[in-house]
Each structure stands twice: as structure tokens, then as C-alpha cells.
């Protein structure tokens, strides 16, 4: 057991995976010599060599396509894309190849690989460094999408992703990399891909989120609790496959839900969650599911960022309006 933040927990999972399975290789821009722009792969090249922790040219399609070939031929590649906004040049490889080879070959060839991508805003970054476009990958059949919000989940989900027989996109909340620490077991353990985690139990309202927005969601839950509301908080952890049963079970109990995400409102994952709830728990719903999300705008630069990101206040206000019904 050690007190680790999320960046360290991921680093420890990568270390464990490299040590446990010699088929594991890491590749990506700057993952080697400098240990990644967020230092998440720090020290791994020194420990496992330049053949297993590989710096690559600036070519995202190449990184994913090469990892895909590596995976088909029996390796267990972990590819890193520096920011989610830089995954788009690799979009074709991910959607048209990585997600499809099992189907195309009727199980004969598979691509067990992990694509690690830091994502999300809130650090006053330059354009393209703040994206939260998880919805485009959730809408893609054939890949799983995982998003930890705690160090313990980060390590366990990453080890599960590396072992998974199918491709997994592993989204890392930049804003939380160094924001939270907790005791993380150093034994080899996995957190299942799929099930959400009920982070706090309650009966009046369900708050649903994932990734970096868990922080504001937790704070909102705390505030509401102080106001006497019994709040249930769900950390989805996996966005694809979505734990519909877990979501529905909670809302059947509480009758109210607020979904929180950074991505734009229209056609974000929040839409899927709201649609699912009304589909399967309409008669339990006391009030519409609220979505507290980013706006349908480009993620703004530093000076406007606070206008864009869902705030604790917006979450609380949405919950309060839901509680009025």
C-alpha cells in the first residue's frame, strides 16, 4: 500500500503490467526519454528499455495503426495519445480498424490493446488540450471506454484493460492527475470494466458523473447533504459498455437524476443516460433528468474556462430544481 495520486497509480499499473507480461509494450510521443508530458510513464524506459517503452514520431495514426498490428501479432501494446484532441488524426484507425478486426475476421484476429489518453479541461491550456469527446468513442461499437476518477480505480481498471481481450480506450482526467491521493494496494488487482461504483448512497436524488467532473459532483453532493438532502452519487468509471442496470436501479430508488459532464450538451453521453432513464424508469421519474454539461461551444481558452466548465453551483442548482418536483 502506498499513498498515490492518479498519475502515480497509472504509472504503477504500467510498471506492474510491463513486469508481469513481456508482451506488453508502451508506445507514444515522448513516453520514453522524458516520461510523457504528464510524467505518467516516468522511469519506465530506464527500467524496461527503449524496445518496450518506445518514443514515436509525431504521427497519431501511425501510433494506433502500429499498435494495432502489434496486438494482432500477439503483443499487448499500450499506446499513448498526448491529448484527446490529438486522437482525431487516429480516428480512422480506431474506428475503422481497431474496433472492427474481431468482427471483420469473425474472431480470428483480435486487437487486445489499450489506448491511454489524458483528457478534459480546467488547466487553462491552449486550444485542443481540453477536449472531452468521449461520446464519439462511446458511440463506436467494438471498443470499450474507461474513465477512472480515483487512484485505486485507475490502477485496477488499467490492469483490467491491459488484460482485456479487446481494445480499450483509457481516458485519464488531467485535472485530477495530481489532485487526489489515496491508499493504493501494490498487489496485482483488477477493477472490472463495466460496473459503475456507487460512491455515496442516498434516496432523494442521483448525481451521475465520471472523470474530472466527479470532483465538482462530490462537492455538490456534500453541499446538498449539508442541506439535508439524501444524495446518491454514481461514478460511472466505464462509459462503454454503460452500466444501464446500475443507473436505472439508482434512479428507481431516488426518482431524480442529474448527469454531469464537461463535454458539450448536444449528443453527449449525458443524452444517452437521460434517454436510458426515461426509457426504463419513466414511471419512477418525479422530474426530468437534468443535464449539467459544457455548452455547445468550442472549449474556450483560459479567460473563459470558468464560464464553460460545469460548476458546483450549477450542479447544486440543477439538483435543487429537481428536488422541487
Amino acid at each position, binding site marked *: 500500500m502506498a499513498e498515490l495520486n492518479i498519475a502515480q497509480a497509472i504509472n504503477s499499473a504500467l510498471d506492474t503490467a510491463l513486469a508481469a507480461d513481456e508482451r506488453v509494450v508502451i508506445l507514444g510521443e515522448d513516453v520514453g526519454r522524458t516520461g510523457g508530458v504528464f510524467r505518467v510513464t516516468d522511469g519506465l524506459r530506464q527500467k524496461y528499455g527503449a524496445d518496450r517503452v518506445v518514443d514515436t514520431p509525431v*504521427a497519431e495514426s501511425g501510433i494506433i495503426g502500429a499498435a494495432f498490428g502489434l496486438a494482432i*501479432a500477439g503483443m499487448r501494446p499500450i499506446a499513448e495519445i498526448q491529448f484527446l484532441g490529438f486522437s482525431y488524426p487516429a480516428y480512422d*484507425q480506431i474506428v*475503422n480498424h481497431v474496433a472492427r478486426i*474481431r468482427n471483420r*475476421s469473425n474472431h480470428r484476429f483480435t486487437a487486445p490493446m489499450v489506448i491511454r489518453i489524458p483528457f478534459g479541461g480546467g488547466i487553462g491550456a491552449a486550444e485542443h488540450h481540453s477536449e472531452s469527446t468521449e461520446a464519439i468513442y462511446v458511440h463506436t461499437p*467494438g471498443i470499450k471506454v474507461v474513465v477512472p476518477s480515483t487512484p485505486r480505480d485507475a490502477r485496477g481498471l488499467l490492469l483490467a484493460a491491459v488484460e482485456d481481450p479487446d481494445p480499450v480506450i483509457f481516458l485519464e482526467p488531467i485535472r485530477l492527475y495530481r489532485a487526489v491521493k489515496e491508499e493504493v494496494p501494490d498487489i496485482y488487482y483488477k477493477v472490472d470494466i463495466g460496473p459503475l461504483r456507487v460512491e455515496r448512497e442516498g434516496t432523494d436524488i442521483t448525481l451521475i458523473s465520471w472523470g474530472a467532473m466527479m470532483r465538482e459532483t462530490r462537492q455538490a453532493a456534500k453541499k446538498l447533504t449539508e442541506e439535508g438532502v439524501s444524495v446518491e452519487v454514481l461514478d460511472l468509471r466505464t462509459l462503454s459498455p454503460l452500466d*444501464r442496470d446500475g443507473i436505472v436501479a439508482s434512479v428507481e430508488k431516488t426518482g431524480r437524476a442529474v448527469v454531469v459532464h464537461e463535454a458539450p450538451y448536444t449528443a453527449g453521453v449525458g443524452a444517452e443516460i437521460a434517454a436510458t432513464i426515461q426509457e426504463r424508469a419513466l414511471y419512477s421519474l418525479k422530474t426530468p433528468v437534468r443535464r449539467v454539461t459544457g455548452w455547445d461551444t468550442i472549449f474556450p481558452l483560459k479567460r473563459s474556462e470558468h464560464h464553460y466548465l460545469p460548476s458546483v453551483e450549477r450542479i447544486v442548482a440543477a439538483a435543487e430544481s429537481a428536488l422541487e418536483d
Partner: protein
Amino acid sequence: MFNLINPDGTVRDRLPVTLEEMKRLYADMVEARVYDDKSIAMQRQGRLATYAPFRGQEAAQIGAAAALQAGDWVAGTYRDAALNWKAGYPWRLLILGRTGDERGGQLPEGVNVLPPSITVGGHMIHAVGLAWAEKLKGTDRIALTSFGDGATSEGDFHEAMNFAAVYETPTIFLCQNNGWAISYPVEEQTRSETIADKAVAYGMPGIRVDGNDVVAVLVAVREAADRARRGLGPTLIEAVTYRMGPHTTADDPGRYRDEAQVAEWERLDPLVRVRKLLERSGAWSQGWQDDLEREASSRIEEAVAWAESVPPPEPADMFARMFAEMTPNLREQAREIHG
């Protein structure tokens, strides 16, 4: 341009293949052409989906595959049926695929041919990853990727070539320059003198070979394969050839190209020159030719019969093919479709 057999069947140089090997190459090209013809006919009868004929490119495809060893990887295109077949992809699965059945992509264990890529360009880098894996594992397997002239315009060509060069992966890049990307002629696609020239940009050897000369292609690919197995990295081979037929059975080449050009290439037919060469050595007879065609026909007809007897896919298969284990969501949807 590297070439060994002239269009009239005379040779430039001693051929590095035995007469038996030569006959095998010829027989394979004949079989491929029978497949091609039948595939077009079956498409016309509505039994097969749109088909991309390779007529004219048999030498490039059979020659390349003949240079490979069992276990080597192949990543080609929708037009590479002859290449894939020669590398181990059974006709029956190729045909099953063309009936619109994903099970056609399920190659026999041990045959390391990827189901053909339909997107142009995306698959070249896969052959870099495949070869890289073999290098890391310490085997002597290599990977060959085949693609068209048109594909060299895609950014993915550039990234694949560069990765292969940078990591010195045992990869062979085989470009079948067949003159056209659908209706867009190769002369307009690029201003480089040749496609082989593009290798300069990656510090990689680039070889230009007569793609209608099966032995020249065989030799070029074999040399590239040797280099790759010896750890000397990738090679780009431009096989200059011609697409005699339409782009696909849905295409009408009369809209964009001159019959004169087609007629010119007709003279350069890859099968004819080998037949003439064999004739000259007394190794060809009409009787043998008839046997070859009849046997190929019957093998392919068997394959067709088999493919057409495969029961229609179950709806459940569609869901089961997504992951090793169905997700709850897919299980639910599979139940729903069963009503």
C-alpha cells in the same frame, strides 16, 4: 525498371527459377484469372456483391506471394484476391466474404493473411506493427503490405513508410501501380517521377519492377524479404502494371479512359509472356492449358458451391462478434432481435 521476361516471352537474363517453378507460377496465374472471370460473371448473375477485378495484375500478385514463407503476414486490399489466395486464403472463404458474410474473413489458423482492407491506405501501417511484433518476438517472419498507386496519396502511407524505416521493421511495401485510382490517373496523382522514388523520403530502398513480369516481381520481393529477415529493414517495391478491367463491377471505365491505352497493355499481358516462354521451352501445350483451366474451374466451382451452401448467418452472430464476451447491452439487443 527491373524486368526479366519480355512481352514476347524472351528473357533478358538467366531466370533464377526452375522450369517447374515457372510452370507453377503460370498455373497459379491461370487459376487466378479463372477466379477473376468467374467472380465477374457471378456478380452479373447477382450471386456476388460488387467485385474489384485484378485482371492484368496476376503477375504482381502471384509473384509477390510466391516469394513469401508460411507464417509471413500479408495485409492487402479488396483487389488482392490472387495475392491472398496464393498466400493461403482459400477461395471458398474469399467467395463467402463476397456473398456478404463476415465468416469469409475467418482465415484458417496458421494463415497470416488479414481480411482485405476496404478503406484505402489504412492497412499499410498494420503491416508495420505486425512485422515489428515479429521482430520483438525474435522470429524471422516478415510482413508484406500490398496497396495501389492511389493509396500512396493517403497520409497513412507516409506514416507507415516512416515508422517502418524508423523502427527497421521487416516490412515489404508492395505498390501495384495499375495506372488508376478509380478514374484518376497516376500521372495526376503525384509529381514524383515514380512511386519507387518516394522511398527516398524515408531513407528506404525503392525498387521499380515490371509488374507484369511474374519472375521479376518474385525476385524483387524475395530480395526485399531477405533483407527484411536479415534485419536490414523495409523496402518499397513499385510493380508497374495495369488494371485491365473496370475499377469494380459497378464502374464504367469508358467514362474516363481510352480504349487505346487498354489495348496497349493487352499486349503486355502477364500470362501471355509466360505462356510464350514455356512454349519456347516446349513446356506448354494447349492440352495442358485446357487441363489447368478445367481444374481451376472445378476447384473454384466447388468453392462457390460450398460458399453458397453456408447457411445464412444467425442474427446472434452479429452481436457475438463484437467482443470476446458479449456485454450486457449486446446480450439484451440479441434477445430483442429474437423477438
